[in-house]
């Protein structure tokens, strides 16, 4: 097999084709003619903490610490992350932000290692037979060895050694297509270390237990194909030689070629039970398992006409690119620029003083003749060549319009995110429109807009939560205030309930009062009648003694009655305003009632005596009062009644006012009080009327 030539290679497997694709000038012979050389030890190693997709590694060494070759410098952080190791023995100089190989030219945290030149290995843990290890041991070792996809993406390999959720992996594909012009790192690796590659794949197959193992390789690498065929002889691995077409090395395109399966929009190959790994990764896995060597170096293609000795070099990670190039005769004056990666998908390096990392497969230093500047972009002539070239079957023209006019939602609807940025559309564009650059920008913008939207949604949520909280606090305060007011009202109500018997007493009192008034009126009437009856028999002496007595008694009674009335007023006020005093006042009222009764009794007794007294005497006494022309007995009565009636009326009026102004809860009480007073007033009026009638009749008689 080692003697096979390209013409003898016959595909042993039905291959499929993917849409579009281009055939750019390969330019591979520039670098694949010489064997891989070992790059010398650089004076300084720059080791970025993030050389892979996922979380940056966590530093576990200290500044000034001496580390041995292969010693772990940083731990994997989280599931999608890998460790980082010292490429050679030396001292940790510092951990600083250093420019890294990134299209933005920005800096990122890096460990700076100054080699001591001894290149002293740390203790390794080799394993002659990987079959003796469990699958999880292999996965863990791969993770601890810091292996990330070496094809260019840098996805942690360990993650891709786990079969997708309970699914069996139908096909494990080793990607050896290396379709991009200039790059020959995989080609040379396979030619020289096919055994390592194949054994690495066997370890992966051991972990994944796939239905079939395929190696996809383009037919422009006959020596590599021959080496692979030789290496896979004793294994189940099938070498599939595919036609050379860019970008057959794209993961999705290679899967399509080998299995006719397409990775659906927004999904990954694992979702259709296919796993794709790079040949460089396979070799690194082999070295990690077999010799316990972590990933500390990689094979990088140094190519382009501006490099005097182009070829592939095995270079320590962290080697500064400018230093590396200087070792291989880089002529800066000849170079048009420095490109990291290939001419199709690579990007211009803004700083040459950036390190080689796990994903650096090629450093291209083309001359102006090599890779002339693209002509100025002209207007799109709608030729449709881009659509024919697109390997993802997109509509590059539409995407271009939408990206340019920032109609990002439309671009998304046209599946912008399925674009693999292979650059085929730009390559074929007769107007030299930088289509891919537009798509990259649009993708970035869309991602940014989504982040912004997410952030604004989050801010809105927080704002609304805050408003809700403030409202709640407000209503809580209000509720507390109300609760306090209610508690006070309740306490009052409880007191009122306790006093509910007392208002009854009070009302009884008022009834009694009314009764007493009635009684007094009755008494007055009786007095009148009695006076009429006893007008004739009068004695002076009696009159002289008696009238004083009776009048004094009467005033006493009136006074007592007035006091009682006042007290009643006070009591009623108290019921409304100061419930706690009601009891006391009630008692006072009762006492006064007794006093009034006593006064009344006293007066009645005196009056009885008076009835026996002669009328002339009375008349005389009356005549002593010059201003009084009318008979004395009925007069004070009518006056008293008038006063009583007026009092009652004014009280009723006051009460009515109070009722009008009253609080709702007091209305009922006041209404009752008003009713009572009305009765009182009516009674007083009646009494007054009767009294005045009696008087007039008496006057008439007189």
């Amino acid at each position: 097999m080692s003697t096979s030539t390209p013409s003898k290679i016959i595909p042993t497997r039905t291959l499929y084709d993917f849409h579009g694709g281009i055939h750019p000038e390969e330019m591979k012979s520039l670098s694949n003619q010489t064997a891989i050389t070992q790059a010398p030890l650089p004076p300084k190693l720059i080791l970025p903490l993030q050389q892979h997709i996922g979380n940056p590694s966590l530093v576990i060494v200290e500044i000034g610490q001496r580390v041995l070759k292969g010693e772990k410098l940083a731990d994997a952080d989280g599931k999608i992350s890998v460790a980082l190791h010292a490429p050679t023995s030396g001292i940790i100089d510092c951990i600083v932000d250093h420019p890294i190989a990134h299209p933005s030219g920005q800096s990122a945290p890096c460990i700076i290692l100054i080699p001591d030149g001894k290149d002293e290995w740390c203790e390794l843990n080799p394993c002659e037979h990987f079959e003796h290890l469990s699958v999880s041991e292999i996965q863990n070792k791969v993770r601890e060895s810091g292996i990330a996809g070496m094809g260019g993406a840098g996805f942690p390999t360990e993650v891709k050694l786990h079969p997708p959720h309970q699914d069996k992996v139908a096909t494990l594909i080793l990607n050896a297509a290396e379709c991009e012009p200039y790059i020959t790192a995989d080609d040379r690796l396979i030619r020289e270390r096919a055994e390592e590659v194949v054994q690495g794949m066997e370890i992966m197959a051991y972990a994944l237990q796939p239905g079939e193992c395929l190696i996809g390789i383009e037919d422009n690498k006959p020596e590599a194909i021959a080496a692979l065929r030789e290496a896979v002889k004793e294994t189940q691995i099938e070498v599939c030689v595919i036609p050379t077409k860019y970008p057959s090395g794209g993961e999705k395109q290679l899967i399509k070629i080998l299995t006719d399966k397409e990775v659906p929009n927004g999904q990954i190959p694992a979702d259709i039970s296919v796993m794709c790994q790079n040949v460089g990764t396979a070799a690194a896995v082999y070295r990690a398992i077999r010799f316990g060597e972590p990933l500390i170096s990689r094979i990088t293609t140094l190519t382009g006409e501006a490099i005097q000795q182009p070829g592939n070099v095995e270079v320590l990670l962290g080697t500064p690119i400018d230093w590396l190039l200087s070792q291989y005769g880089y002529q800066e004056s000849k170079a048009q620029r420095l490109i990291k990666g290939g001419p199709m998908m690579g990007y211009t390096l803004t700083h040459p003083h950036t390190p080689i990392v796990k994903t650096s497969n090629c450093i291209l230093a083309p001359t102006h003749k090599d890779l002339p500047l693209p002509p100025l972009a002209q207007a799109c002539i709608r030729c449709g060549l881009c659509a024919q070239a697109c390997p993802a079957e997109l509509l590059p023209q539409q995407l271009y319009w939408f990206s340019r006019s920032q109609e990002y939602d439309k671009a998304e609807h046209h599946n912008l995110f399925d674009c693999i940025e292979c650059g085929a559309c730009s390559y074929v564009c007769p107007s030299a429109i930088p289509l891919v650059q537009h798509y990259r920008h649009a993708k970035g913008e869309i991602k940014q807009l989504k982040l912004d939207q997410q952030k604004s949604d989050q801010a809105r949520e927080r704002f609304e939560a805050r408003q809700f909280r403030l409202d709640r606090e407000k209503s809580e305060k209000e509720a507390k205030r109300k609760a306090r007011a209610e508690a006070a009202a309740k306490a009052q109500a409880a007191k009122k309930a306790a006093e509910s018997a007392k208002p009854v007493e009070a009302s009884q009192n008022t009834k009694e009062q009314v009764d007493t008034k009635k009684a007094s009126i009755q008494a007055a009437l009786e007095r009148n009648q009695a006076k009429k009856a006893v007008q004739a028999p009068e004695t002076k002496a009696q009159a002289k003694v008696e009238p004083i007595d009776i009048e004094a008694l009467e005033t006493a009674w009136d006074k007592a009655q007035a006091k009682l009335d006042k007290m009643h007023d006070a009591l009623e006020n108290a019921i409304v305003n100061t419930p706690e005093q009601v009891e006391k006042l009630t008692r006072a009222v009762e006492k006064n009632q007794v006093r009034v009764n006593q006064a009344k009794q006293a007066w009645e007794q005196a009056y009885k005596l008076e009835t026996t007294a002669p009328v002339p005497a009375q008349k005389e006494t009356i005549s002593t009062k010059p201003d009084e022309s009318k008979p004395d007995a009925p007069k004070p009565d009518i006056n008293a009644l008038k006063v009583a009636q007026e009092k009652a009326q004014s009280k009723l009026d006051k009460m009515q006012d109070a009722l009008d102004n009253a609080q709702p809860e007091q209305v009922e009480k006041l209404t009752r009080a008003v009713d009572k007073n009305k009765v009182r007033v009516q009674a007083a009026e009646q009494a007054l009327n009767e009294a005045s009638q009696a008087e007039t009749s008496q006057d008439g008689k007189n």
Partner: protein
Amino acid sequence: MSVIVTAILALLGLAAVFGALLGFAAIRFKVEGNPIVDEIDNLLPQTQCGQCGHPGCRPYAESIAAGGDINKCPPGGEATIQALAELLDVEATPLDAEHGEEIPTQVAVIREDECIGCTKCIQACPIDAILGSAKHMHTVIASECTGCDLCVEPCPVDCIDMVPVDQGLAGWHWNAPKDQNIIATDKTGLLEDMVEGGNLS
């Protein structure tokens, strides 16, 4: 004559029927609230900064829905104005300078050793993005801060700075290639600029 009368009657009849139908539909399918306010609110940046003169983004959305200007939101800038113009089918007007200028997203940073713990900024923050308690140092939750700068003014010791957000590598994305709609014979050196700008690979 009867033809005209028939025609008029027929038209009147149709008008009555459709009028009734429309009237019914207006009641039956009445939409509660104003859905356009939600849509407008969704386009606004939710900084709740009040630069538009409204107490928050939603009130501004309500004012726009009521026919107000769409160019009063500096944090949203031209992009928001464009989006609003598209949504409302009105002409996009340039940002009203009276309400401020469009500046890159900022984040508030408290100089912590100067903070006296007065809690004034905490009360001012519309989205509760400042942590701290009385007489203790406060700090801004940078990931939540919208950069509305409402906390700057209340600070009695002026220890709050507004700094542009450092996007870092994760936030970086490719610039748009320069528009080069020029004729091929134009050799003004534009291309060299482009190469230096990293827009070509």
